[in-house]
């Protein structure tokens, strides 16, 4: 794989098309489950093809985000921002491999052949959830902070609308409910293990990310139809879908949505992963477009800003 300008424009539409095709197959699997009354259709879809797609999307996101870093000088504001975003993508890749492939009893998991599969597979799943949860979101929140700083410095930062505040308050209530549940469980005699405790920051981090995503969405929206904003709009959509998926997991675990309809929330993770992968693709596209414009060295020769 190389950093070819001509190919960079292909990534965002390719990611969208592949994910749309997978979602279509997923809907067919859901339909087959309803018709045959056999849930194996949907379960198998998520255990193998959807798991492979999630790993591929995480790999794509990591690779594209790493390529973006190279286009920033060390003194550029967004260089550390993109480094943090790429680190977040790296954690997501590790998390996806561990939780979707190595942490699941499936045909594509080589660990099932091991004599220690019984202890290794649950350990891999926990490690994957930690890498793709707490670590991924912590790095991402730091990266988004730099993006917001860029909007602030440019004077292009948008204002949140009342609807955004409603979303934040609702997610805050969801977070509070989880905290209350954890406290109640501990008071009831439950002793959380270290993996559980390491997972506690996930919801607060998602709440922070949701706030950042809404600010970025409004800022990018205020810019108009420019291509720079596409990357940050994609990140906003990805974070929103992730937060929605997190609430979906909670709804599923607490049985608030009747089976089989609760399984619909599983489908949110595919477009969320696709949006995360498309964000650096949009950034690369605009940077490569800038590099391929006519007369590029004229300004560099006469550029008064280059030392």
């Amino acid at each position, binding site marked *: 794989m190389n950093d070819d*300008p001509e190919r960079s424009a292909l990534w965002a539409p390719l990611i969208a098309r592949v994910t749309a095709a997978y979602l279509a197959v997923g809907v067919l699997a859901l339909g087959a489950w309803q018709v045959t009354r056999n849930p194996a259709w949907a379960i198998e879809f998520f255990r193998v093809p959807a798991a492979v797609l999630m790993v591929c999307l995480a790999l794509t996101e990591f690779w594209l985000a790493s390529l973006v870093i190279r*286009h920033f000088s060390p003194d550029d504001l967004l260089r550390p921002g993109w480094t943090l975003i790429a680190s977040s993508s790296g954690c997501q890749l590790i998390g996806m491999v561990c939780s979707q492939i190595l942490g699941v009893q499936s045909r594509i998991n080589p660990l099932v052949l091991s004599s220690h599969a019984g202890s290794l597979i649950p350990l891999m799943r926990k490690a994957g959830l930690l890498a793709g949860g707490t670590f991924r979101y912590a790095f991402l929140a730091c990266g988004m902070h730099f993006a917001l700083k860029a909007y602030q*410095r440019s004077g*292009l930062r948008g204002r949140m609308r009342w609807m955004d505040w409603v979303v934040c308050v609702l997610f805050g209530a969801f977070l509070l409910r989880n905290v209350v549940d954890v406290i109640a469980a501990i008071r009831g005699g439950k002793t959380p293990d270290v993996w559980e405790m390491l997972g506690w920051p996930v919801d607060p981090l998602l709440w922070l990310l949701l706030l950042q995503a809404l600010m970025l969405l409004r800022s990018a929206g205020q810019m108009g*139809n420019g291509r720079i904003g596409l990357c940050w709009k994609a990140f906003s959509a990805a974070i929103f879908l992730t937060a929605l998926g997190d609430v979906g997991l909670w709804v599923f675990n607490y049985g608030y949505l009747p089976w089989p309809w609760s399984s619909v929330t599983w489908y949110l993770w595919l477009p969320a992963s696709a949006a995360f992968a498309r964000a650096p693709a949009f950034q690369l596209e605009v940077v490569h477009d800038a590099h391929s414009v*006519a007369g590029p060295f004229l*300004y560099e020769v006469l550029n008064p800003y280059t030392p």
Partner: protein
Amino acid sequence: MTPQSEHPDIEDLLRFRENTLPEDERRAVETHLAACSQCRNETERIAFAVKGGNVPVASSEDFLASLSRLQSNLQQPGASDALKQRVKYELIPYVGTEAADSILQPVAPNGENLLSTIESTLRLFLGKPATARIVSRIVDRAIVRA
């Protein structure tokens, strides 16, 4: 090559073409060119420019003449607005209509801070190398060729 970027800078490419780079740097540029179509194109453009070929950019004399012509034109009423309009048109694909208006708002009537204003905003989002290219394009299209 500059430490900031993996791409060789314009000076290195010129010296590479003139065969005046130290051996190790020359090898590094050569290796980079083998893998980077963007820098190969750049080297070709430099070769054309040095030969006096038909490249789609103005010469530095033309550029400086255009700048002084622009400076005198800017003294005329409405000239600054026309320039801003042309620059806005070039900025819109990257930043969008509303942001282009907002970025150009603090530009002085005589246009003296035009490039630095654009550069400082674009650099925040796209980094120094890509911003230099875009500003180059704006200089070329909205000032030199206008």
